[in-house]
């Protein structure tokens, strides 16, 4: 069964570009966020809108607003506190906690061990075949290329005490915060709000 038994599980991995090391978890999160956004749009269309065969119409819910009004202040009698209930319509989408469907915050913490640092000598991309690690291509637009890897304390304690002495360790916190609602949606909500805003009726003359 174990035909493919490997010579060794240990391979010489000197590290990857630090830019990539930091960006990889973030791009994975962006991908996940994109998938969630697609599901979110589906959810909104199915639940906050009716499809009338031609276009989507927003579902509107009825809200009530209650306030106390003091009546008969000038009549000399005891003022009466009256509860006045006003009804108004609100598009369902405006009370949906949309932005909480995505990723609120991501905190990726890892110790980064810088395994190599190279100064760029020429403008052209070339492969450094002289170093002990696998060859890698230098980037045109940066002067210094750093290689790093995620370090674990276990490794540091056991085998790599010596190599650590010749490398630098950084602590990296990658934080991605929540995004506010998209401006387009905010404008739609704003337009609806203005459209359903109650207007004050002129006083009826007695």
């Amino acid at each position, binding site marked *: 069964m174990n035909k493919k038994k490997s010579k060794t599980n240990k391979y010489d991995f000197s590290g990857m570009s630090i830019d990539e090391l930091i960006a990889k978890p973030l791009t994975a999160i962006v991908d996940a966020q994109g998938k969630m956004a697609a599901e979110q749009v589906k959810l909104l269309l199915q639940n906050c809108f009716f499809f009338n065969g031609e276009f989507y119409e927003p579902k509107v819910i009825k809200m009530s607003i209650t*306030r106390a009004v003091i009546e008969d202040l000038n009549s000399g009698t005891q003022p009466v506190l009256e509860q006045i209930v006003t009804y108004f319509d609100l598009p369902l989408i405006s009370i*949906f906690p949309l932005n909480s469907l995505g990723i609120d915050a991501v905190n990726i913490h890892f110790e980064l061990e810088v395994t190599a640092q190279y100064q760029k000598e020429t403008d052209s991309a070339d492969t450094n075949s002289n170093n002990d690690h696998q060859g890698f291509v230098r980037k045109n637009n940066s002067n210094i290329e750093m290689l790093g890897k995620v370090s674990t304390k276990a490794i540091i304690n056991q085998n790599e005490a010596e190599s650590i002495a010749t490398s630098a360790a950084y602590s990296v916190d990658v934080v991605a915060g929540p995004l506010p609602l998209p401006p387009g949606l905010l404008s739609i909500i704003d337009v609806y709000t203005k459209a359903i805003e109650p207007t004050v009726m002129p006083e009826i003359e007695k």
Partner: protein
Amino acid sequence: MINEQKIPCPICQGQIPFDPMSLLQGVGFACPTCAAVVSIAPESIDISKSAMNAYRELKLTNAKK
């Protein structure tokens, strides 16, 4: 609070903070400026409840991923 939502107050144009889940359960939210209380009308509870349930389900599915 990340999930805090606000409705514009139809009386004073201020902002009324509310929690959608509680709003659906009939809880009223008061405007901090004019003290008017906003709540959902009973006839609209069903329509918003089903939407919120779908939302909750999606949130749970996302959390499992």
